């Protein structure tokens, strides 16, 4: 049917364009940026060639002599300088003589240039010598060139005869823009800081997942199962609150609970304990609260999925077991848990991904502190690329860190597309076979 095809293309176009522009393109660009050294210092568009002291220092490690030569001032008697001299309205003979006798000469230092100026027939005073020599100072240090050609041309005029390798080295050392590099991945692979962040992440995901997103969620689902429907719905509503509440206000409540003028301090104060910041006073407490506040949010999804799965278990099984004298624990152990195998696997898989990517809560509560104790991978990427105290935002390195998560995300989602028949699970998570 031709018409349905055209209609289909028109109707799907907005979705395709939006996803392409703001979802797929960022994925690709994350990969691209991760191979660059983009940062605040390099800018995000192209750069220029700037001979700074820092650039000279970079060059020194490979080519010390060349670096030293470039950083020294150079004095060139050129038409431009002579014209400037004429404009100074000193004795007219200075200019004429320099133009006729010395035009085109290059001096490697101020001393040599000033010796020639001093020898002029009209005998300039020492002050005049200094003023004149300044006009011919053609040092490249602290000058900026828009293109590589302009830089090399200027160096050539100053009497540098550079080999291609030297040209390459000078251009590389003075370039201020970003360049392609695989250093980001080397840093991620080698730095002990990164290893620490990786361990933090593994710890955070594993513990939160086990205790809350699966463990406590199961507990909630099973206990609410043994209540009257109305009581159960009250408890479910309460435990869904953390997920419904906007993250900023949710974290504010936890801060109020744990801050040094907050609830816990006041409460413990009744028993004579001094007030302290329970959230940030040491790494152990910080982890305790980070896991707790994330766990409270995470438990609700498991609770809902497991509840509806338990609801799908035929009631007759419970009746039969009660006739046989099964205790409540035996019902849980032999009826409920075995039939929740797939939902549990699904929640585990899904929430691993969610926990890996979630950093809002940690950013707003501990900011990765105290020190870097609760810094997890996604938060570290955010800190590296978008917000840090040194002020140099390393987009390239941050993108490389994000890419690690992107790759894990794609792999995990492909796995559960395959294993869990995601399409059927998402609408009703009751697949048993």
């Amino acid at each position, binding site marked *: *049917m031709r*018409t349905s095809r055209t*209609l289909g293309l028109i*109707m*799907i176009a*907005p*979705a*395709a364009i*939006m*996803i392409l522009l*703001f*979802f*797929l*393109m960022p994925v690709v*660009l*994350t990969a691209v940026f991760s191979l660059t050294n983009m940062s605040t210092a390099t800018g*995000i568009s192209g750069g220029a060639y700037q001979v700074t002291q820092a650039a000279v220092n970079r060059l020194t490690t490979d080519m010390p002599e060349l670096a030293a030569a470039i950083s020294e001032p150079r004095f060139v008697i050129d038409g431009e300088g002579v014209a400037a001299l004429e404009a100074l309205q000193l004795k007219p003979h200075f200019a004429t003589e320099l133009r006729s006798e010395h035009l085109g000469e290059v001096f490697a230092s101020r001393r040599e240039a000033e010796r020639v100026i001093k020898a002029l027939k009209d005998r300039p005073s020492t002050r005049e010598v200094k003023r004149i020599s300044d006009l011919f100072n053609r040092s490249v240090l602290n000058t900026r060139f828009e293109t590589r050609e302009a830089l090399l041309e200027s160096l050539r005029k100053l009497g540098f005869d550079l080999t291609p390798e030297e040209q390459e080295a000078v251009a590389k050392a003075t370039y201020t823009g970003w360049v392609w590099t695989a250093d980001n991945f080397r840093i991620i692979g080698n730095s002990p800081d990164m290893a620490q962040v990786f361990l933090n992440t593994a710890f955070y995901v594993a513990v939160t997942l086990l205790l809350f997103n699966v463990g406590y969620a199961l507990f909630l689902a099973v*206990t609410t199962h043994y209540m*009257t429907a109305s*009581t159960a719905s009250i*408890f*479910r509503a*309460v435990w*869904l609150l953390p*997920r419904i509440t*906007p993250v*900023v*206000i949710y974290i*504010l*409540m936890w801060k*109020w*609970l744990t801050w040094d*003028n907050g609830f816990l301090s006041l409460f413990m104060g009744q028993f004579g304990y001094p007030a302290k910041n329970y959230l940030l006073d040491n790494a152990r407490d910080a982890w305790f609260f980070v896991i707790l506040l994330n766990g409270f949010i*995470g438990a*609700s999804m498991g609770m*809902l*999925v497991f509840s509806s799965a338990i*609801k799908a278990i035929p009631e007759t099984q*419970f009746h039969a077991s*009660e006739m046989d004298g099964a205790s*409540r624990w035996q019902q849980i152990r032999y009826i409920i848990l075995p039939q929740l195998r797939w939902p549990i696997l699904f929640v585990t898989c*899904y929430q691993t*991904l969610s926990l*890996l*990517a*979630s950093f809002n809560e940690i950013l707003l509560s501990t900011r990765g502190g105290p020190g870097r104790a609760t810094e997890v991978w*996604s938060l570290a*990427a*955010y800190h590296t*690329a*978008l917000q840090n105290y040194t002020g140099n935002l390393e*987009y390239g390195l941050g993108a490389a860190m*994000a890419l690690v998560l*992107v790759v894990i*995300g794609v792999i995990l*989602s492909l796995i*559960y*597309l395959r294993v869990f028949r*995601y*399409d059927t699970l998402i609408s009703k998570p009751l697949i048993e076979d």
Partner: protein
Amino acid sequence: MIEKTRVSANFSSVPVVLLLGLLSLPLVLIYAYLFIDTISNSDAGSLVPSEFTLQHWSFLWETKPGKPNIWLVTLNTFVFTSVITAVILLVSSMAGYVLSRLNVPARGFFLAGVMVLHAFPSVTLIIAIFIVLQYLGLYNSLLGVILVKAAIDLPLGIWLMKGFYDTVPWEIEMAGIVDGASRFTVWRRLVLPQIRPAVMALGLFSFLSGWSEFILPQVLAPGAQVQVLSVYLASLIADDNNFDFATFKAVGVFYVIPVLILYVFFQKHLMNIYGGGTKG
């Protein structure tokens, strides 16, 4: 719904209610104090409020120095949230129908792509999006962050809508075609009314998701003129010079009220969507 009480008729439900009640107490407590603290003052060192006051709500009628006006921020938040909701509803109700019913090239591929993206840690893309918006000149504008947020929520929307369209019987459409309606008319007049609950649920979800969004506006549109409530509240809290929990909580309650109203009225819809799971 099946009545669950009969299942465990031999057992008392009192112990579990007590146990869970005890565990839920801290949560209930911090939510209760969220409201209590905004309208009362307590003596130093005491947890029991001693007087009633509205001073913590003064941010509604006086603008704090260096902060944008609260009503401008609220307006921004409403614009941000409603545009996102409208865009997601419109775009995903069309795309979902195509993926469910119409014969277009690369349909399976698109569907698989949407599925992978739906499960994607989208916040990790924020670095690239930040740079893209700077290139496009959309950095620090509401339009930019609206487009980004809508695009990130789209895969879930498309996915949900597709699932709901799948449940609409083909016979309805066939009847329409036989009566001489075009496919578009069939979609617009016959199919769309069938999935009104789904449109409701998705709209609700998108609204809540937009209203709560923090990190995208924080990174992509932090300017005073385009601030939304979440960024405003976060900047209040981050300001160490004026640390005052009661005021923060008042702003927080002001911010959370629409969410709670929606939650009370549409709890069942939300349970369904959050059971599908979308975030940590």
